[in-house]
């Protein structure tokens, strides 16, 4: 396997707060990589830096070997590096199908092609993916009227619709009904194995991330604290201390 995302020596501060300090990590192509850490440890900040949401103070971020730390959010998204939001963002006034159709990849779309209606294939794919996340029955409902957990699933389906190479998921299971979490884990694994999407996942639920990830990074106070396989992380005294200290 080769690295698809390479973060090296990235720092980012907000005023006096050093949200990320000298962070280096890699995400292997085709893997499921986890990012954990106590609240406020800088996980979302790192995601934001990777997708170009804010400029970084120093360091370099490479995607498929290409430096992307100077690119804009939509440019990075069009390279196939997509993110979902911790605060779930969907288009609330539109129905689920419309949300999906808006999410078609804009990577190769020319202006002329934008002046066309969605193709039957796109509609079919939208319905197929809504079925995949279990929202098929609700496809004509206004997205804003769905429960928070269902909105998270819709956002996940929208991300898949966009056919990303890498998907950054910020706490995909937060707010999801515990009885549905196992189903979501299966779907994430399916997206990884069958659709070939590399996943980089921020997750607070240890059971979930230990179950899925090939490799896990742990942040604390803006710094990289530990890295390793789920077993190594689980038994790492520093990680245990960081979590106990934080709670």
């Amino acid at each position, binding site marked *: 396997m080769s690295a698809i995302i390479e973060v090296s020596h990235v720092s980012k501060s907000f005023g006096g707060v050093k949200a990320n300090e000298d962070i280096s990590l890699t995400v292997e192509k085709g893997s499921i990589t986890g990012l954990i850490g106590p609240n406020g440890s800088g996980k979302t900040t790192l995601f934001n830096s990777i*997708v170009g949401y804010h400029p970084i103070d120093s360091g370099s971020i490479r995607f498929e070997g290409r430096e992307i730390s100077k690119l*804009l*959010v*939509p440019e990075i*998204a*069009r390279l196939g590096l*997509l*993110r979902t*939001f911790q605060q779930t*963002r*969907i*288009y*609330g*006034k*539109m*129905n689920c199908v*419309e949300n999906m*159709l*808006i*999410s*078609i*990849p*804009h*990577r190769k*779309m020319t*202006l002329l*092609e*934008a*002046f*066309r*209606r*969605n193709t039957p294939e796109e509609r079919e794919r939208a319905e197929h993916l809504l079925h995949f996340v279990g929202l098929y029955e*609700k496809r*004509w*409902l*206004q997205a804003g*009227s769905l429960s928070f957990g269902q909105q998270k699933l819709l956002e996940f389906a*929208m991300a898949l619709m*966009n056919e990303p190479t890498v998907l950054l998921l910020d706490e995909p299971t937060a707010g999801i009904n515990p009885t549905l979490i196992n189903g979501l884990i299966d779907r994430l694994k399916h997206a990884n194995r069958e659709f070939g999407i590399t996943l980089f996942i921020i997750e607070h639920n240890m059971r979930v991330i230990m179950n899925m990830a090939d490799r896990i990074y742990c942040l604390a106070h803006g710094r990289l604290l530990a890295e390793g396989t789920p077993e190594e992380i689980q038994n790492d005294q520093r990680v245990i201390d960081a979590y106990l200290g934080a709670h």
Partner: protein
Amino acid sequence: MSMRKLALYGALLLLTVAAPFLFPAYQTQLATLWLMIIVALTWDMTGGQMGYNSLGNIFFYGTGMYVGAVITITLYFPLAEYTDASRSETFTFTPEMYFTGMVLGTLGAGLFCALSAYAIGPLFFGLRGPYFAIGTLGLAIAAGEIVSNIDILGGGQGISMPVYGGDFEVFKKIIYYVFAAMGVVLIVFLSWFYQTRFGKAINAIRDDEEKAEAMGIHTLRYKLVTWAISAFFVGMAGSISAFQLIHFEPLETAYQTINLGIFMVVCVLLGGKGTLWGPVIGAILFHVFKEVTWNYLLGWQWVALGALIVVIVVFFQDGLMGWLRHRKPEWFGIRVESREARASA
């Protein structure tokens, strides 16, 4: 399309064609009504469908007037001599010159406005919410002031357009049909445009621009092209207005920020933002309201207009279509899960 819809559209089209013969005394008002429909629909492209409320679209109207006039005149005469007020020479246009000027001038006005929207757009689309509104308003105000200081464009006096040599009744009909044709083309275009991927993308920008960016949508490109299309139609409408009014001057007619510049927004708010027919219905209601108050409440017309605006923004923020959509969501294909269904799920 269902037969009923087809019949309805057919009837509306027939009415559009027959209107100047059915109401010969109101031909000018009917032409102005189409102008209102055009500026309302184009305002809604950015305001209602894309979430960018411009107060400066009147810039394209005024610019369209000037570009249309300048092209028409310079096709046959030196502009400086034509606009030099001290000269009493009359410049006569044969019907052929007149119509050639009208066609080329109006197309040129549309193209010029579209290109200017595209060129200045990056400056304005970095602004959000009220800043975009005020920024675009500033553009229109500044343009009016600048143009009134350019002598070759007639300065503060404005420009007197060539006069149609023929029958005045025919002239009124020509103006009406040109506006009506432009309006019908615009409605047909928009009913298709809003269904395309492009139309969906601008709705995404309106609902959550940050999300749209994160999904890789070319937000700036879509914003620029949408504004340019809108400016294209407004610019052409401005040019036709110049022919209709015969004489126009920069501040009160061309860059009339407080009249037409605000009216177009009121029309859309009245009918309902972000819908195809809302701006059309709003323009009709507003135009009737305006004609009635301007004729029967003279002296109080602005008070009545102010009261109307207050009533809309306080009680009917989503306009007539929004109110209808709230009452009859199924007419608009909106499905909201019932409480029971949700509880049992």
